[in-house]
């Protein structure tokens, strides 16, 4: 048997939350922009900081799909429900939406605007 149980179930059970320190704005075209504070790196001191400017904030502009995912990731529903919402809205199959949403969520987590809470007692498959 070559198939092994994949670990996507644990990702589906995780609940995405916005970074509380982030600010969200939506312009007249519906484009969502998320602003999050940057931590000043320890090494960014004079004389290096005279050359490399410290950016106190980072702006992340989301495309329409990303904006929709962002609004769904408000801490009230697990990733699986977000996937279902995206699949319904964009007429995708579950796994198409899963791949797109989980990839997107991972990129938002890496950028520090989203956090994933993974249930401790989740019934993950072996």
């Amino acid at each position, binding site marked *: *048997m*070559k198939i092994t149980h994949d670990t996507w179930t644990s990702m589906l059970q995780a609940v995405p939350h916005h970074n509380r320190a982030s600010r969200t704005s939506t312009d007249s075209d519906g484009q969502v922009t998320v602003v999050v504070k940057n931590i000043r790196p320890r090494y960014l001191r004079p004389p290096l900081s005279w050359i490399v400017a410290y950016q106190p904030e980072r702006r992340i502009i989301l495309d*329409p799909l990303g904006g929709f995912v962002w609004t769904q990731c408000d801490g009230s529903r697990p990733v699986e429900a977000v996937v279902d919402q995206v699949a319904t809205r964009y007429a*995708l199959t579950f*796994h198409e939406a899963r791949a797109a949403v989980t*990839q997107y969520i991972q990129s938002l987590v890496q950028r520090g605007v989203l956090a994933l809470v993974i249930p401790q007692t989740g019934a993950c498959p072996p």
Partner: protein
Amino acid sequence: MPSDGGHGMTALPWEETLWNGIALSHPADWEMLQFSRNTTQGRCAFADRHSFRLELNWRRVSAPPDWDRMWSDYRSRLLQDGTTPGDSLSQGEWQGLAATGTTRWSRYFPDHGLLLELVFIWPDTRDSALESNVLESCMPALPNHGRAFGMDWLTPDHWQLAKGDIKPAQASLTFHDPGHACELRLSRQGLVSVWLTDSLHEWLMKQIGTCTPISPAAIHDEAGHSVTRLEASQAEPMRPWLMRRIAAAAWICPTDGRLYSRIIRKTVSRFRQAGPEPLPLIRLSCCSEFHGE
């Protein structure tokens, strides 16, 4: 193209997949997440939303396997893995073996020299009715007829699937004829409202690349599908005595809202006197309302 009915106790919508000359029906929410292009020996795996559910293995062999030895080897492997083999099973020509959480079935089709193996994975309890329906449906099919990733296609005989590029909402399959003079690219793309800003004609021209249109693009309406067709010629890189003849078509299916396209590239001699060679007969369809382009 999900369908319903004909599957007895399991009242789920079902779907038929045709892949590499093998037909298989399964619940519509089982999606093919892994696949082989090799027609001689390969595998596909289907998953529902939470886990893999079915593995299909195939092998073209000239004689049936030594069943006793095959099942004995499988029992030994299960024991080595710490799994207790269960009862032997049979359904028609299918022979099987139950084990904890899985059932494995095998059948040889002598007329096609094809050995098929199905491995079901049961995360909860075994569904015998579902299993029986899948087994009944699994059989050799026309090798040039495929149905997967939301597309239904028919290619000339002996064409090979050279490349399968499957991404979320973006499936593309490339076929070659045996002499590699013809290339066919079929694609199906979702999220069209998000990324398509051009007309279908402009989008097709971008897909083809630099080319000289042979005739103006034509739009043909059939069963609510507005198909943009384009014929063009293209220079063959490094071989100036050859050129490519291109026939392309694209449409957005009103049923699923996806963009389907079919691009045929045929390499021909520039000096051919007898007029353009006919392009091969190929069909791509998207839904039951539209019989294909």
